[in-house]
């Protein structure tokens, strides 16, 4: 019962806060009323087309790279668990794995895969 009352108070306070903020917003800055006030400013002319456009997501190469190394970190958790037991063998094996990945990055870099524009 007590919890329900608390929840109800929070609900009412939330509604009141929402109304108050809406009112303050309306008083402070009325919504732009004309078309000219709504368009983005580019220096004195109106845009010819809408700015919704499909563009090349150029960071996709970086995103894929992040995923690859993210997964590599996942492999490192079990490795870290057995690292003390296995010793130098584990270290060398992991180094080989990372070196292969790094070589891949260097190759992609040289081929211009990370070129932005």
């Amino acid at each position: 019962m007590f919890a329900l009352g608390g929840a109800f108070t929070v609900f009412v306070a939330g509604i009141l806060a929402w109304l108050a903020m809406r009112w303050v917003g309306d008083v402070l800055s009325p919504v732009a009323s004309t078309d000219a006030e709504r368009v983005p400013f580019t220096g004195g002319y109106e845009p010819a087309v809408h700015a919704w456009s499909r563009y090349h997501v150029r960071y996709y190469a970086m995103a894929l790279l992040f995923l690859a190394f993210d997964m590599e970190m996942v492999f490192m958790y079990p490795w870290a668990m057995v690292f003390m037991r296995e010793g130098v063998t584990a270290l060398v094996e992991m180094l080989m794995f990372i070196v292969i990945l790094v070589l891949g990055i260097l190759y992609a870099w040289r081929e211009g895969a990370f070129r932005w524009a």
Partner: protein
Amino acid sequence: MKGPSDGLSVFGSASGFVSLVAQTRGAFSGTFRSALRRLAIGAPVRVFAIRGVDPPADPALLHLRDGVIVLDSPRSATILLIAGSVPEALREAVKHVHDEMAHPRATVRWVSDPAEERVDHQAQYNVSFSDLTSLIETLRRVQNDLVTGARSSEDDELPGTTRTAWRGVGPYGHGGAGMTGGTPYGRPMAERAPDRDALQLDQLPLRIGPYFMAFPAGLVLDIELQGDVVQDVAVSAEPVSPLRPVFAAAINDPVSVAVLERARAEDHLRWLAHALRVHGLAALGNRTLKLAVQVDADETGIESSVAELKAITHDVGRSGALWWSARGVGLLSRDAMAGRGLGPTARASGVRDDARIDEPAYQALGFEPIVNAAAEVAAKTASSDTNGGDTSARWRLLLAEAAQSLDLAARANGARAWGHGVVECPRGRATAREAPEPQLYAMLPDLLRGMEWGDAVTTVVSLNLGEGGDVRAVQPWAAAEKVRQSAEQAMKNENASDMSGMAGMTHTQHQAE
């Protein structure tokens, strides 16, 4: 005894309760508004300044004053300050800028001659002071009048024109005839074109200018953007920047080298101050602008200016972000700049091109032009990567030349030079008929194509194009015309298919409104 209805009699009825709430709300809102009004009267004046032809004083100097904020966009400005007379070709654009300001708004015309023809019918404030203090007082008075309601906000300059409504169909104006290739918010979407990976992606046509804060007033660029990559550029309006009076005089009559070199240092510093502001280093830009003003004023000693210039050079050199954004951007090759009289822009690309070399007065002072040595060396070793000057080279050269000019001015001792039809002005070699900027405008499309938009702005700012202001003609915007035609065609097709009863669920009834 109380009846059931007596419980409500406190408020009369349910509708009475609603009206009481509305009254309380109104009273609160009134108090709130008057409190805000008192605050607004003390606030700095928010101004969007438009530079026209022959302003009474430089509107850029408002950046150095308290009590006034010069904005980059008219959106949050209260006052549109029109400094100088607006050329015929740009009047329509000024009206658009005016209409894009939010209410309450007012226009103040600041002209040398108040009698000349006005741009619009509404600007009631015409002032012609050449001192900024009186101007700022007027601006403050106008803003206070707007805030207190003594003066009503100005109406649109272009009401009822056939502009595309920034509103689609549906209760919130968010809908339109489809999202892919349709007209969201009543505006058609961009056409597709192949990008560098041979994908078909939208190419956004944009017309930047004539009053984009980073560019000289009047420069209009029609660009095609894919993402933030500039695919195509056309210069649709080339502003003419006025030559400083002292340089204009030097074309026909000998003038004092000291005065001329002070003016050159001032021009270089103003240019750098603008660049710093565009790059977000407003405080450093204001310091540079203050120094430019000090250099121009005759009564101050040159020694203090030299010391301040050294300090600014040091601080600008330490700004990692600035150099990072300028390095390798906007490379102008040595060959392209050779022999064209493009002044500091050419010298930054390693060209030893300066009309001062041949002047006896400068020879007597032991003048040797500063040339970007790295570019010269690179040209000799035919290393194509650095064969020329980038934006960072241009700014380095600018600072070095400002110091050199101050040094020449200090040693000139009343020497006089020029007066034979040509002068090395801050932007390059000028005669009575020719100025260096048109050559730079011609280079812009090839230079900017393929750049990211941010780099393109950096590059345009780094070329010395002057303040602008005067424009003879603005070319029509081809992309907008094409969009308009295809939208009309689409509308026609839709109407035709409607009539044949093929498409029952279109929104033609909304578009007909």
